[in-house]
């Protein structure tokens, strides 16, 4: 039915029969407009994307092979920026810190969010609709505010120490700095993955679970053979997003355990890799800063690829 209407419209545009000559030129103009229209619609987006994302990315690859301070001429130095980074103890420590912030919260974040999502969907939860906004709400607090609030909560006379009866210097003891950040990351991030998993669970039909249960499949069997396989794309998505977000981490560690004053306040033992970019930009070492960025890109690419591979393979 749709097809006929379209065809009819093509053959008899209004006015064609009455004024054939005028209509033909108008039709040609319209055909040109038809071709151009989609490009005009994407043009503003593409211009913004090219100017402020794509071109700067390409230039930064080039820049990463130069020594450039912003005002004197750039000098080609090959791979020296990359070598300097790999040999720098601060960079290596920052890399380890970022890996810590990625891997340590991974299980509590994704596992906890998955468990909670399954619990909410399990039909034995009271008020399931209440939990979605309730568990998501930490995500609403800006990273700045959440870091400042946790800074107060983790202070010596703060809530955590007084409730648990501890005397831990979360904000100054080098052994605990990163663990405080992990607490903040798990608190703030859990709701995000929870909502993602809730959405993913809608792809698991309740009828299928009921049928399996009737056939005698126990809770674990249903989890293992129905829920997990159907959730695989969602879990993969969550893993990739978590990797990207973790490697770009900046605000939380710096505002939670940073000292007074400076922009990248976290001490070296807790500073994320992002600080290497920011410090080198403000220090006028643009080539070095670009090299940090591209090393991070390679890391994200490799980790994402591994995750895709793992999930592809186990699908067979």
């Amino acid at each position, binding site marked *: 039915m749709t097809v006929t209407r379209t065809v009819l419209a093509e053959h008899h545009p209004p006015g064609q029969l009455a004024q054939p000559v005028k209509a033909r030129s108008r039709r040609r103009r319209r055909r040109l407009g038809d071709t151009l229209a989609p*490009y005009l619609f994407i043009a503003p987006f593409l211009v913004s*994307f090219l100017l402020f994302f794509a071109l700067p990315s390409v230039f930064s690859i080039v820049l990463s092979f130069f020594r450039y301070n912003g005002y004197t001429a750039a000098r080609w130095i090959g791979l020296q920026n990359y070598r300097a980074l790999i040999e720098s103890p601060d960079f290596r420590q920052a890399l380890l810190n970022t890996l810590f912030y990625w891997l340590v919260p991974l299980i509590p974040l994704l596992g906890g969010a998955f468990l909670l999502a399954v619990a909410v969907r399990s039909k034995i939860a009271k008020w399931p609709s209440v939990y979605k906004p309730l568990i*998501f709400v930490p995500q609403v*607090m800006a990273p700045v*505010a959440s870091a400042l609030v946790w800074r107060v909560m983790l202070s010596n*006379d703060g*809530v955590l120490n007084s409730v648990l009866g501890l005397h831990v210097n979360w904000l100054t003891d080098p052994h605990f700095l990163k663990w405080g950040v992990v607490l903040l990351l798990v608190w703030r991030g859990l709701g995000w993955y929870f909502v993602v998993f809730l959405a993913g669970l809608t792809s698991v039909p309740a009828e299928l679970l009921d049928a399996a249960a009737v056939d005698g499949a126990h809770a674990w069997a249903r989890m293992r053979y129905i829920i997990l396989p159907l959730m695989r794309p969602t879990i993969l998505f969550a893993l990739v997003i978590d990797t*990207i977000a973790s490697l770009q981490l900046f605000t939380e560690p710096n505002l939670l355990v940073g000292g*007074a004053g400076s922009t990248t306040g976290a001490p070296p033992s807790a500073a994320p890799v992002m600080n290497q970019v920011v410090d080198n930009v403000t220090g006028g070492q643009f080539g070095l800063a670009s090299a940090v960025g591209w090393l991070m890109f390679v890391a994200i690419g490799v980790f994402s690829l591994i995750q895709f591979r793992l999930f592809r393979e186990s699908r067979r």
Partner: protein
Amino acid sequence: MSAVTAPARPARPVSQRWIGGRGAVNALLLGAGALAVYPYLVMLAGGFKTAGELTTNPGGAPSHPTVGNFRHLFSGSTGSTMWRALLNSVIVTVPFTALTVLLCAMAGYAFAKYTFHGRNLIFGLLIASMLVPVEVNIPTLYIMFTKINWLDSYQVQIIPGTASVLGMFMVRQYMRGLPDEVLEAARVDGAGHWRIFWRIALPMAAPVLGAVAVLTFVLKWSDYLWPLIMVSSPKYQPIMVALPALSTSASGFIVSYELLLAGSLIITVPLLVVFLRFQNALMNGTAAGAVRG
């Protein structure tokens, strides 16, 4: 299919056992909900406490609530910085959000409803670019904005970043579901491309545009890294940068925690209002990419 058969079935007796004890599940959920909300309560209560009470009673309700912290933050020289920074945040966030929604809507519409040369290639490249982290661009953008004198301005906070690939993707996914017949009917009636987009496609896509707007607003309002690097003077600084800087400079080395909590409360209120009003748009936007993977 299930709509017909479902009511006939008895009320799911077996599935009730599919994870374990009812009490354990509800206790787990209640505990998680309480832990999620508790820092909000600490912030809310702490903002109204004196410095002394915050030390002796860090987690409970204030015994003598005071608005002294807010008065301190919003009066005198501190106050002028804070008011200015709040104003800057609004000046930056509102146009940025409007611009982002417009660009995403236009591009998403074209990718959803037109076939054109290079469509799949451009779309694929845009999606792939989501793997490129912001770190990569910051050095070159910093140099670029130095050269064109954009550092320390409003435009550096409003124009870059408006081409949100995620937002465009969300609009495109939604608009693919709009019925072609309606657009075609408008075309037959003589409506031009822009008119069809503006008058017909946009109103029909209102839910996803709302989701993109809310998501963009929340992310932009909360942004710390970008203004920290690109903006240095209080004249253009948003509240997210001004507040943490204030706490350290105003009181020297000792951070006044009660002021931090009061300030955090202030910068969180707009986000909470948006969340309470548009919570479904925000949460569905969050999960947008999840189902399709």
